[in-house]
């Protein structure tokens, strides 16, 4: 039997498999894995820290522990990883549902390029030089790019996945050109930017996390509340309208939630590609297309992938590290190619 046939058969069976107890068991298993990933993320690294020391530091008795600074830094990056992983995976799932486009991903729809250009402008024109300074610029740039892409695709007739992807690709490439133009003429700006443009979850303090936390919360709540609308939208505009859904309102709600989540993630961690594309696909192939199941699974699986990528990145290049933004692509792309090869991309 060919791979395509196998895939098609699994596709039909998959939604039935995810019965409610089945889903609960799956989520529980994912949670266990997530806890393991969190522990591993704190313990492993260029210096391994015994679990006992970690517990001592976390319970406030870490005065005698030599590595307490490392523990605090690792806790911060783990928190960033969980937040960004969850946000990107959920945003990816919502974006794919919203656009009915299996290719939708913040990176492919201009959000990263928008945040990038905003950060370049902040560095080279306004002399911003700190991570906390970049946050607001990145957020604004991501939001504007998302609005621009959706508005242009809307002008061009909306729903067509190809047109939205085309508009996204054009906006992304155009914004990237403007960034290059600014960077080519300023060596100092480029020296700062080249480190920002590789997404990483390391080196962010907890204070920065607290600054951005409200945006994650708002974005997640908006998307979670709109899950039912996403299911209606997935049927197509006409059918959704027939079911009594206010299509324009539903679209706008989800789009705002997605933009806030992507913007907050990019602001905190820099551009991290492919996570938002791959995790929803895996989730969908396990629990079927119902967003009420896909999104909770994404919520747990996104952080697992990002933390795993980060841990691998720390271990492969000791004592230095490969940033999580690079490792997600290194892990995600071969998977994506297999997905395409097996003909899974067509089904949403």
């Amino acid at each position, binding site marked *: 039997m060919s791979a395509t046939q196998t895939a098609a058969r699994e596709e039909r069976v998959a939604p039935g498999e995810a019965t409610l107890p089945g889903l609960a068991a799956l989520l529980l298993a994912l949670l266990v894995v997530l806890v393991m990933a969190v522990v591993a993320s704190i313990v492993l690294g260029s210096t391994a820290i015994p679990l006992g020391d970690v517990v001592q530091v976390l319970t406030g008795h870490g005065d005698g522990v030599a590595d307490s600074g490392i523990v605090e830094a690792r806790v911060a990056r783990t928190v960033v990883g969980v937040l960004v992983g969850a946000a990107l995976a959920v945003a990816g799932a919502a974006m794919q549902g919203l656009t009915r486009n299996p*290719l939708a991903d913040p990176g492919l729809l201009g959000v990263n390029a928008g945040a990038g250009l905003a950060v370049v402008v902040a560095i080279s024109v306004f002399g911003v030089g700190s991570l906390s300074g970049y946050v607001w610029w990145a957020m604004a740039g991501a939001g504007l790019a998302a609005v621009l892409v959706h508005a242009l695709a809307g002008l061009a007739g909306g729903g067509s996945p190809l047109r939205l992807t*085309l508009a996204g690709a054009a906006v992304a490439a155009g914004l990237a*050109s403007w960034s*290059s133009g600014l960077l*080519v003429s300023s060596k100092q700006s480029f020296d700062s930017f080249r480190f920002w*443009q*590789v997404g990483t979850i390391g080196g962010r303090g907890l204070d920065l996390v607290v600054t951005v936390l409200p945006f994650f919360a708002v974005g997640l709540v908006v998307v979670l509340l709109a899950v039912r609308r996403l299911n209606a939208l997935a049927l197509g505009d006409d059918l959704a309208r027939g079911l009594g859904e206010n299509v324009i309102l539903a679209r706008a709600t989800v789009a705002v939630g997605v933009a806030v989540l992507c913007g907050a993630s990019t602001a905190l961690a820099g551009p991290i590609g492919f996570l938002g594309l791959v995790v929803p696909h895996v989730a969908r192939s396990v629990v079927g297309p119902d967003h009420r199941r896909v999104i909770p699974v994404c919520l747990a699986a996104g952080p697992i992938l990002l933390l795993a990528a980060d841990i691998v990145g720390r271990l492969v290049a000791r004592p230095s590290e490969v940033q999580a933004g690079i490792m997600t692509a290194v892990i995600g792309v071969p998977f994506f*190619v297999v997905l395409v090869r097996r003909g899974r991309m067509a089904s949403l």
Partner: protein
Amino acid sequence: MTADVLTPTGACADPRAVAAEEPADLARVVRARRRPTRRVRLVIATLAVAAVAAVLVRVLLGDYVVALTDLLPILRGEALPDAPGASFIVMEAKVPRALLGLLAGLAFGAAGAMFQTTLRNPLASPDIIGISVGASAAAVIALTFLDAQGLWLPAAALVGAVAVGLLMHAVGRGTTLAGQRMVLVGIGVAALLSSVIQFVMTRTSIQDAQAALVWLTGSLARATWPVIGMLSVAVLVLAPLLAVCARWMRLAELGDDLSATLGAPAGRARLGLVVAVALAAVATSATGPIAFVAFLAGPIARRLCGGRPSLWAAALIGAVVVVLSDFAGDYLIPDVNLPVGVVTGALGAPLMLAVVVTAGRAGKA
């Protein structure tokens, strides 16, 4: 005429008979059928003139203005008594840049149009589907880690581009949705290779990283005669092949099955893709990926030609755009030399968006 077609006796079966009966109608049909062809020819001729004009502008004008009457003696190698430096500036700076821009523009334009038509997907330009990124990743690694100089840099880029092309071919092979899958895989590979590039950029000195950045935006600054020689040989070899494929482009657009039914040889579309990959790879290796030229030349040419895809028009548009953008990048903002890729990207993106929006309104694309 309409009545004749509708009669079951088949009055139209013999064209000579129709001609004898209704010469005026036949002449009108012939005229109507020729009109689009004539329009395409007119567009191509105009664009050829424009390309020559663009090259002349690039060579003669700018910071150092050369009179047209002085150009011929300089090209013949004679020294000008009243301007001893003129020969050097023209032959080592201005003419190479103009020629490299012309050749690369032709190659990008033709390759992009070939991809878009054969794969039947406006997204399928070498920019988006990874050929350029393959060349970029290889070139950046060669530039930073291996300190590649001279012709080694284009050679490394060529290897990268061809490798991506082969991977895409391997993935698409033997499937009915070959084109669609090639595009998807290309997008994925492009994402992976961009992160490789970003990683390399953080692991090298700022000098190397900046040189890599200039390469990545596409620049004609490394125009030397050996590079021009390589590119012109490649274009001269590939152009006849492309001319063969161009005749089947309109059929290829109908899809594999229909075009085979209509008599197009099965291998032609595949051959067209191979030639397009080669052209894009060679051009990218010489100049770096010049944003949007391959992406835009096809759609613009199609619009100018009244909806017909024309490879030659696309190639010429690419040439005009690259040469003029390079000129603009040098002199538009005083004291700032922008690489040509920045200009084409900054101006190309709005144009592209206009194409997307208007195509959507017209209900196509």
